[in-house]
Each structure stands twice: as C-alpha cells, then as structure tokens.
C-alpha cells in the first residue's frame, strides 16, 4: 500500500481534535431543563444523521456516474460512502433510542421517522449482502449501482418524514410540530455546540471516507493480482 498522503495524515489529526472539541462543547453546553443531561446526545445524534444522509445521497450520485462511465473507480467511491454512512447512521439510531427512553418512556416506537430510519439502515445492510453474492466485479458494480440509486431515495424520505407525517419526533431545526414530544429551543451556547458538532462530524466523515477509498483501491489491486497469479 502506498504511504498515506500528508493531507490525509493531517486530516486524521484534525478529525480526532474536532471530535474531542465537539465532545467538550456538547458536554459543557447548558443542560436542558425538562430532559436533563440526556439532551446532550442530541448534538452527536444530528451530527451523525446529517453526514450519513448526505453520504447515502452521495452514493446515489456515484451510482449514476458509474452507470454512465462504467469506471470501477466510481463503484469504489459508492461503496466507501455507503459503508461510512451506515456506521454513522447506526450511531444516530442508537443515540435516538437512548434519548427516547427518558423522553418518551420507551426505547423504540414505530413512529414514521424511526420506521423510515430503520428501513434505510436495513436497505444498506442488504446492499452489502447483495454485493457479497456476486463474484464478477462488473456485474457486482452494476447491480450495486442500481440498488444504491434506488436505496438513495430512502435518505430524503427519512429526512422529510418528520415534516410530512404526523410524528412524535421533534423538529428542532426549521419547524414546529404540535404533536412532537421532547422538542426544545436552543440557546446561543447550545447552537454553537450544535453547529460545531455538525462541522466535526463532516470532517470525520471526509476523513473516514478517504481512508475507506484507499482501502477499496488496495482491495482492487489485490483482486487483480490474484487473478494474474491464478491464471
């Protein structure tokens, strides 16, 4: 494997620092009066959700580019984007569930937002199962691209679920939902912590995405070398 570029090394360090600062700011943000300390998971909940949904949409864009160009490089980008997003979205769901326990008195409820989020996560887990079942790289990439393109629709549906349907999930940014349970208004300090968390998770996402792309390139090289040796 080629040595890590200096930019990526710097980005690794910046990502770790950003995560540390985001944690510090979130923990030192004012405590919400009704929910207490658990409200502080909200900063990471939104940060991971934001990057994961952007990642799923990016993967759909890479799929289109792959289907047009048939260049396997775009397949590797799509795979990397989905894998990192899947991890981030898992964190989102788990944090949401942890928040829901004291706020809604239940770990899980089949609310439209929670349901669409769970379906999105399952769609992308199935994406990896689909890829595992196909040996031919071109066929795997083609099937993966079509699947990721259709699966990409689940990201905007999940995002708009709380704005389109009656749901108990709060809309903290840009919306007032009379049915929501657990909503709150942010103070200036909370807003600073919130926007810094968004920034930090965007940096972490880019860093992990880049590292995952390099891993994909290495996987591809090993696969090609295997074919050459066996033939």
């Amino acid at each position, binding site marked *: *494997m080629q040595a890590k570029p200096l930019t990526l090394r710097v980005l690794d360090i910046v990502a770790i620092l950003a*995560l540390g600062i985001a*944690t510090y700011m979130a923990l030192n943000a004012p*405590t919400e*009066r*009704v*929910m*207490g*300390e*658990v*409200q*502080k*998971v909200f900063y*990471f909940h939104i940060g*991971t959700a934001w990057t994961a949904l952007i990642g799923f949409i990016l993967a759909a864009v890479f799929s289109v580019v792959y289907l047009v160009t048939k260049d396997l490089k775009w397949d590797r980008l799509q795979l990397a984007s989905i894998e*990192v997003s899947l*991890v981030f979205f*898992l*964190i989102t769901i*788990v*944090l949401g569930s*942890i*928040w829901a*326990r*004291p706020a809604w008195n239940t770990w899980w409820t089949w609310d439209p937002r929670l349901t669409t989020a769970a379906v999105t996560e399952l769609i992308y887990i199935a994406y990896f199962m689909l890829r595992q079942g196909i040996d031919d790289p071109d066929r795997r990439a083609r099937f993966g691209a079509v699947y990721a393109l259709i699966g990409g629709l689940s990201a905007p549906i999940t995002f708009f679920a709380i704005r389109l349907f009656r749901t108990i999930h709060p809309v903290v940014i840009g919306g007032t939902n009379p049915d929501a349970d657990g909503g709150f208004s942010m103070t200036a300090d909370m807003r600073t912590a919130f926007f810094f968390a968004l920034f930090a998770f965007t940096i*972490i996402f880019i860093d*992990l995405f880049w*590292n*995952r792309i*390099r*891993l994909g390139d*290495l*996987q591809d*090289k*090993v696969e090609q*070398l*295997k074919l*050459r*040796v066996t033939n």
Partner: protein
Amino acid sequence: MFFQEPTPDTSGYMIAGYAITFLVMALYVASIYLRSRNLNKDMSILREMDEPAPVQAKAPSPVKKMPAKPGSNKPAKPVTKRSRKKQP
C-alpha cells in the same frame, strides 16, 4: 417557579450514548486498519508468487561414467549411446 419540577437525572443515558458513539467509531477505525493490514500481507505474498523465479547459474552437468571394472586401474568411461548398446 415554586411548582417547577426538578430536572431529572438522566446523566446515565448521556454517558451510555457517548460511550457507544466512541465505541462504534473506534471499532470501525480498527476494522479499516485490520483490513488494510491483511490486504498488505496478501499483496506481498501475491507479489512474491507473481515474480518470475530467479535464474540460477547453470551448474556443470555431472558426466555419467561407466563403472570401472573391478581390479582395473583404468578410469571409468563416459556413458555413450554405443556403450549403452553394448550393455546386456
């Protein structure tokens, strides 16, 4: 203000949330590192297999010689087609 409910203690949930976040991210970073290390190992093995075998310097071929007759001082003769035919 007098009837305001006290803020509940939900710090346990908060700690669990942050702990899970860090754990999941650490596991993912570790998985990228381990996969990359294994692929590098595979790569080096495959490169070794792919390289052509090193050309060995030709050693002088040992000349087969007919066994010398017992009791004679003459050196053994090299094996030729003719000598093979003579043999029973």
